[in-house]
């Protein structure tokens, strides 16, 4: 009883503790000092009468949290799982089936679709998620280009290795999936599982670690419940209160950019080519940054994701003149690749006639080299293709800030607390990898728990090696995306632009390299 009363610390003390947390440079000593103050006797806490026990406690009922709970239910049905969600349960299917896809959607790799049980295969049972509930806006090609660069990158599912086991599936690079139906479908499965319990409209008020790290984690929630768990998983989003509470530091690059996203109706009545488009925009007035046009499950709709300056996002989000926005984007998307500015600018009169002739020759030669890529691409029918035309905006315009963040490791506090999803890392949306990274970590976590359960070890056993490997793999992807963003942000440095164009041509024309990149992006194969 004394422990419970000590748990309900007044808010002022909590606040003070959080302030200390922000000043503390090391993550773990904070937890240690806390537990020392709070908990003198571990066994007293373990025999805490009013506490609810669960083997795994997941905070956050988004896609990552739900996917983890679902995977645990499927692989280890006897394991008890408790899910804490700050919001309401997802509403059941709307009566009028709305065909317009919501812009809150994710680009998922085939591997992620597999983890979520969204790919039909021969072993599909009635237990699997029905595909009609969650619709896939799959794509088998990807086109990336810039206006002032003759090179175009065009990746196709044909670059993926032949896999006999997946012949019945559409060959795809990925699929766009709406958040709402996906979470709803996962949630329904969780609710029907006997070993899974869910608290909605509940937040974590405080958490407490045992002094030696071996014991259970005690969590106090806003519904005045005390939970005890062997493994606390924080899937509570980019602003993760649990991460902040533990004082875990993140490496961070703020892009000073925001993303604007909405659903558009296409003007043509024919089907959208199953292609994801991405154009890099330069120039202040156009709104620098990548502009993506993604296919959806509806052939008449596509989702626009425009990552640009906060001023641009504010201007276009607040405007009532949606037609002006459509015209602006139409213009950007319909502009194909153009010539590069000359590497060596020859100004008549400044150099002697003979040298200027040589310079002119060098310039032409360089231009030929750079254009050769585009010409080769045309012969392989991999040249630039104009995206479908946009007609009107048919959804609310949403915006979110962009940053690249990453924690040093996913497991903390003697492996009893794990950070997954946005709580651990966020990336620029240009590569569409954010959720894929989170689901990859979910897969590793489940794999580790399955292995330790098979030999009767505690869940913490083996967690370290599994998550360390996944963290290394994910971090290289995060750094890769960050580097790509920086490369494409280059716009005034002419030699660098030439180098980039040359690099893109090499990437496009060298088959093995291109295939390797496509595999890395879709199957989580790391170089």
């Amino acid at each position: 009883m004394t422990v419970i009363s000590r748990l309900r610390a007044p808010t002022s003390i909590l606040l003070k503790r959080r302030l200390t947390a922000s000043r503390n440079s090391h993550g773990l000593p904070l937890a240690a000092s806390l537990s020392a103050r709070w908990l003198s006797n571990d066994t007293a806490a373990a025999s805490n009468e009013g506490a609810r026990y669960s083997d795994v406690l997941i905070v956050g009922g988004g896609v990552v949290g739900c996917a983890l709970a679902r995977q645990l239910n499927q692989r280890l049905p006897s394991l008890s799982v408790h899910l804490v969600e700050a919001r309401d349960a997802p509403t059941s299917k709307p009566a009028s089936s709305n065909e317009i896809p919501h812009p809150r959607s994710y680009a998922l790799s085939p591997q992620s679709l597999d983890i979520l049980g969204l790919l039909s295969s021969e072993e599909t049972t009635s237990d699997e998620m029905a595909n009609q509930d969650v619709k896939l806006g799959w794509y088998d090609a990807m086109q990336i280009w810039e206006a002032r660069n003759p090179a175009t990158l065009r990746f196709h599912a044909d670059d993926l290795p032949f896999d006999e086991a997946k012949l019945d599936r559409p060959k795809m690079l990925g699929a766009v999936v709406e958040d709402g139906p996906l979470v709803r479908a996962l949630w329904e499965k969780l609710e029907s599982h006997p070993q899974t319990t869910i608290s909605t409209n509940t937040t974590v008020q405080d958490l407490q670690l045992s002094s030696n790290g071996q014991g259970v984690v005690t969590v106090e929630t806003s519904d005045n419940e005390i939970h005890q768990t062997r493994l606390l998983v924080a899937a509570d989003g980019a602003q993760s209160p649990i991460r902040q509470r533990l004082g875990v530091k993140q490496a961070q690059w703020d892009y000073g950019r925001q993303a604007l996203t909405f659903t558009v109706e296409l003007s043509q009545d024919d089907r959208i080519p199953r292609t994801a488009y991405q154009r890099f925009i330069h120039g202040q007035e156009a709104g620098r940054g990548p502009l993506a046009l993604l296919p959806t499950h509806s052939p008449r709709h596509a989702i626009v994701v425009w990552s640009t300056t906060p001023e641009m996002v504010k201007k276009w989000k607040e405007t009532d003149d949606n037609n002006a926005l459509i015209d602006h984007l139409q213009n950007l998307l319909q502009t194909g690749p153009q010539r590069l500015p000359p590497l060596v600018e020859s100004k008549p009169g400044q150099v002697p006639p003979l040298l200027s002739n040589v310079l002119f020759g060098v310039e032409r030669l360089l231009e030929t080299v750079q254009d050769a890529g585009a010409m080769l691409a045309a012969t392989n029918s991999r040249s630039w293709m104009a995206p479908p035309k946009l007609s009107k905006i048919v959804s609310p315009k949403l915006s979110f800030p962009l940053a690249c963040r990453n924690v040093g490791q996913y497991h903390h506090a003697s492996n009893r607390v794990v950070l997954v999803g946005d709580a651990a890392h966020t990336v620029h949306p240009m590569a569409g990898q954010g959720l894929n990274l989170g689901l990859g970590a979910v897969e590793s976590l489940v794999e580790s728990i399955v292995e330790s359960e098979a030999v009767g070890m505690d869940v913490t056993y083996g967690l370290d090696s599994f998550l360390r490997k996944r963290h290394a793999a994910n971090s290289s992807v995060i750094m890769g995306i960050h580097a790509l963003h920086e490369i494409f942000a280059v716009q005034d440095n002419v030699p660098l632009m030439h180098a980039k164009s040359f690099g893109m041509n090499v990437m496009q024309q060298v088959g093995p390299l291109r295939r390797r990149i496509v595999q890395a992006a879709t199957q989580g194969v790391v170089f």
Partner: protein
Amino acid sequence: MLSAVRQSHRRVFNSIAASLHRVRNRNSYIGQRYRGASSTSTSISQDEVSKFSGMDKDWWDPSFHPLIAMNPIRIRYILDIVQKQHSATTNHNNPNAPPLHNFKALDVGCGGGLLSESLARLGANVTAIDPSEALVQKAQEHAMQTGDPRLRNIDYRGGLSVEELAATEDDNHPLLFDVVCLLEVLEHASDVASLVQAASSLVKPDTGLLFVSTMNRTWKSHLLTIVGAEYIMGYVPRGTHDWNQYLAPQEVAQTMDGFGMEQVHVSGMVLTKPPLCGQWDWKLDGNDTDVNWIGAYRRRINPT
């Protein structure tokens, strides 16, 4: 500093010299160890009890890693043998039932409860005994602390030898187990024969299994476990092991034979790579029983 090094070298040398002496007198040595076998004696060595009771604080410390990392393959071995033994006799109605569901298991020399906890998580009803009261209390605390409900029913009994446990059984209520484990215990016992006799009397006659794991008495095991692990690398405290207490699989099989037990299977346990950076990665190796080994025994069907 130098004198300390010299001293440690001298201790290594003395230890090796003593071992060599023992090897030369092997036959008489085994006789001497087994001579004490009688029904009333206990196999507990008081020196060992006080040595391990002193370790109760750091038993679950990850720095005690060699044994924690070895546990999964010991469990894999036990599950493998149990499944082979029971595949014909039992058919699980519930496919979700844990592999040792409804099994009665005895962990002799449970220490901090490493093996007992694993067996309990896999569904067994575990009785765990250890001569050290302090260690058993620590084990009990640890089981409660981890919060896992499957660990609440482990029957921990401190200060109890297997002979004393066996003495409590009477003909009307025989105390019998499906699985009896003597893992990493023989090398710490003062009277192996008495221990094996008592343990084998607790094994269910038809389907019960007795598991033993210990270290073989070879030059390789001396080099690796005493010189390497204790003196050079300091992975385990010096004096944890006494090479003279190690036993070869043949010796154990012979002792078992004397108490009506036959060997089912024996396998070596080897490290896949040198344990650098604290990474202990064990695997079962049927051919290499030179250092660590594990074996399974059962009651002979027709005692001769």
